[in-house]
């Protein structure tokens, strides 16, 4: 059993759980993570020192108040919907709250980016490929988008018309480059039997270095000391619509992401290609038996996954940065956690991305507002994934509620399931 097959077994088990069960487990995981996080906040509130206690439990003062931390987190992510400073645990809604605010824009920005990377990872996972390489695909896809836009922009009329031509093309270029970069581990897997977990990890490192060199040596912005490309003109980027300036969020990109979710779902569930892809992900031998060209499907799925990652990079460049800059955030790795929480279901990616987007954008507010280091959110993310990984834990916790459907009842000809005892 190769690492890939392990991964496949993992994915199989995740997809095996029924939808309801998965949603229940995700919620339970979230609650457990929040509870454990609260304990961590309290403990760290005893380690650090402060002048006033934020909360007092059992006669002991703590520097951090978990309830406050979580409230601030949501308030920060959503733009102050609650009046935090009012007494009591249940805070009243803020009458002045406007959903089109800066904090919410940040949350949606993260969500949009995570939808792309989450989809990228989900597609590869569904194809039974443990693509850890979305990050590298995103880095190079984003760079390609930035360079393409930079060189082509002068040839186009500036303004809306130019943007309408350039932006879609730039996204396509990003997708192509990301896709081709994703196809490399696909081809290595298909034709050289090289483990894609290793190759994608290696390719992530390589992508970061290549992009760095390309920009620092050849395509850097001469006016900047930072390793970055020259900023694109405003008309060539995705500007915020409705949401305030500076939130780096464009509702167009989110709409595009949501459209992709539907497209990916359609591709996976409704087409012959999707059938091939899922079959090879579930059971490669059966796929081969069913006439699926395993090698080609591997390469194609990795291309597709890489293309989605590349689009994520394109959106990052066009919507967030307006240029490519070294030190690309770890959106590709976050995509893995999104996809895992989503059970690799394209539709599940949306709420999962929203959750992690909320956490990430709220984390800055937490550090700002309560002094609790923002890395707390990283811990929470890990905890959520940990709990999601162990449905058995919740089954044992709630053994009175039988979550597992009684599959065995349908066996009719003897005690053996699946005819194991020939």
């Amino acid at each position: 059993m190769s690492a890939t097959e392990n991964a496949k077994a993992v994915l199989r088990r995740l997809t095996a759980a029924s939808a309801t069960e998965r949603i229940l487990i995700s919620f339970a995981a979230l609650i457990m993570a929040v509870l454990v996080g609260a304990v961590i906040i309290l403990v760290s509130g005893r380690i650090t020192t402060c002048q006033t206690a934020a909360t007092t439990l059992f006669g002991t003062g703590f520097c951090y108040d978990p309830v406050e931390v979580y409230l601030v987190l949501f308030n920060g992510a959503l733009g102050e919907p609650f009046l935090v400073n009012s007494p009591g645990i249940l805070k009243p809604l803020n009458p002045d709250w406007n959903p089109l605010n800066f904090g919410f824009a940040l949350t949606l920005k993260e969500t949009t980016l995570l939808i792309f990377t989450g989809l990228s990872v989900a597609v590869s996972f569904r194809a039974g490929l443990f693509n850890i390489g979305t990050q590298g695909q995103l880095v190079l896809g984003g760079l390609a988008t930035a360079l393409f836009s930079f060189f082509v922009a002068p040839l186009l009329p500036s303004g809306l018309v130019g943007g309408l031509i350039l932006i879609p093309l730039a996204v396509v270029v990003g997708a192509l480059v990301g896709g081709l970069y994703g196809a490399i581990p696909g081809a290595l897997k298909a034709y050289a039997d090289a483990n894609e977990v290793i190759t994608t990890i290696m390719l992530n490192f390589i992508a970061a270095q290549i992009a760095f060199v390309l920009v620092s040596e050849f395509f850097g912005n001469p006016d900047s000391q930072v390793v970055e490309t020259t900023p694109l003109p405003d008309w060539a980027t995705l500007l915020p619509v409705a949401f305030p300036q500076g939130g780096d969020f464009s509702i167009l990109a989110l709409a595009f992401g949501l459209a992709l979710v539907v497209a990916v779902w359609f591709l996976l569930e409704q087409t012959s290609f999707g059938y091939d892809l899922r079959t090879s992900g579930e059971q490669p031998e059966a796929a081969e038996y069913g006439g699926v060209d395993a090698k080609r499907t591997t390469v194609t799925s990795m291309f597709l996954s890489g293309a989605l990652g590349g689009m994520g990079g394109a959106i990052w460049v066009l919507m967030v940065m307006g240029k490519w800059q070294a030190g690309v955030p770890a959106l590709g790795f976050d995509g893995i956690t999104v996809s895992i929480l989503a059970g690799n279901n394209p539709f599940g990616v949306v709420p999962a991305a929203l959750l992690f987007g909320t956490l990430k954008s709220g984390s800055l507010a937490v550090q700002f507002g309560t002094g609790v280091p923002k890395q707390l959110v990283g811990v929470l993310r890990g905890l959520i994934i940990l709990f999601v990984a162990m449905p058995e834990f919740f089954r044992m916790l709630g053994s009175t509620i039988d979550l597992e459907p009684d599959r065995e009842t349908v066996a009719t000809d003897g005690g053996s399931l699946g005819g194991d005892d020939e």
Partner: protein
Amino acid sequence: MSTAVHLDEITKRFPGVVANDDVDLTVERGTVHALLGENGAGKTTLMNILYGLYEPTEGTVHVDGEPRDFDSPADAIDAGIGMIHQHFMLVDPMTVAENIVLGNEPRKWFGTTVDRERARQEVIDLSNRYGFDVTPDDAIEDVSVGVQQRVEILKALYRGADILILDEPTAVLTPQEVEELFRVFEELTAQGKTIIFISHKLGEAMHAADDITVLRNGKNVGTVKADETSNEELAELMVGREVLLEPKAEPQEPGDEVLSVQNLSAKDNRGIPAVSDVSFDIREGEVFGIAGVDGNGQSQLVEAITGLRTPTGGAISYKGRDVTNASRRSRIADGMAYIPEDRHERGLVMDFDLVQNGILGSQHSATFAADGRINWADARDHAERIIDEYDVRPPHADADAESFSGGNQQKFIVGREFEREPDLVVATHPTRGVDIGAMEFIHERLLDLRAEGKAVLLVSSKLDEVQGLSDRLGVMHDGELMDIVDPRNTTEEEIGLLMAGERPDTAETDAEPPVGDAK
């Protein structure tokens, strides 16, 4: 004679299923006791209980007259019980000696280190004592199945087993190896060991056992002495009614050639030649059978024909066209149906429901997927039709393949493949793991296809099946097609010799000894 094992009113329930229902079983010391029954009769479950792998829902296990409560195999081992499972419990990359002493390694240097020399010596001593032929330093993955089985027996003996349970020990052996195994049984019982073996083959039980207990639907339907019973009596006990044991195909005139295999060679997954220089052809309205002990190249041959394995030499032509290197997909499109030998690995996607499994192989066909989009409504109708016609139970198209029993999975695969309207049906072990009713049904359908003028390639390790259904029968041994015989005019013994690699006329010139043959 004293009682070695007494199972007292054992009942074992799994969710929704009663595997053993109030079973009594008494085994005398120093005897060979056969546990006979159809697949799914509860034989293995019962033995797993005796071996401590399962806990009985009700009932008691007595060993040597003492009531015992085994929590784990470790307890059973302590009580002197050893079990040789059908799938060997061996660690492939480790050596014979390492496997035999696993868990009870002799130690040296204050217990820090395995005393490998002593382990080797003990293995050699043990195998000499019972006349076994094993080399302690061979890796398990390099030795034949027969040797692996002997390693399993040695493993149990090394742990001081007095009672040996063997789960279908003959399924993977050549007739000659079977004889060798039964000789070992005699040796062991002569030294006071007790043997219980599970089988569904009447002849074997009659031949090797002193006592025979028949299980049916989880119940003990009778224990008889081997020398006081008859095949007919046992058969009736097993199935509860008289059955047609041997299907016979009426001779019919075959038509045009459908498949032709010329000098085909192929390697297995490890790159070792598995098929060498095989030639035969199949014509319309003909069943061509291939007999042989499992693992003699049949799988690789079939995979080469169906497009799952690239041949290393030779040619395959199908309906007059060369398809040696054609893709699997094009062969499916061209009307080649294939019932694979491993339904869990290949035949079904276990986590897909039957609707999705019903179009496996047809996902690109115009029937279900015009313009690349799958018509799930049609796919559902298709799956429900198969379920209906092939009596797949329970009739739930939305249930995952995994949730069906082996027999029903097989019926679904057979249905799906037969409904392709194929020109050639490649059927490997089509009745493996299905009940007798389903077996009859599948046999009838195969013969129907033949009558319709389709070509059938039937591969089975069940000699009676291939012999009964085939018009011509090829026998494979070690990758070679030993001979093509007329199954109607050849005896089981003759075929058995071919399966063991001996050509009656050229036996002296055959340089290579049969697989894992004992000296």
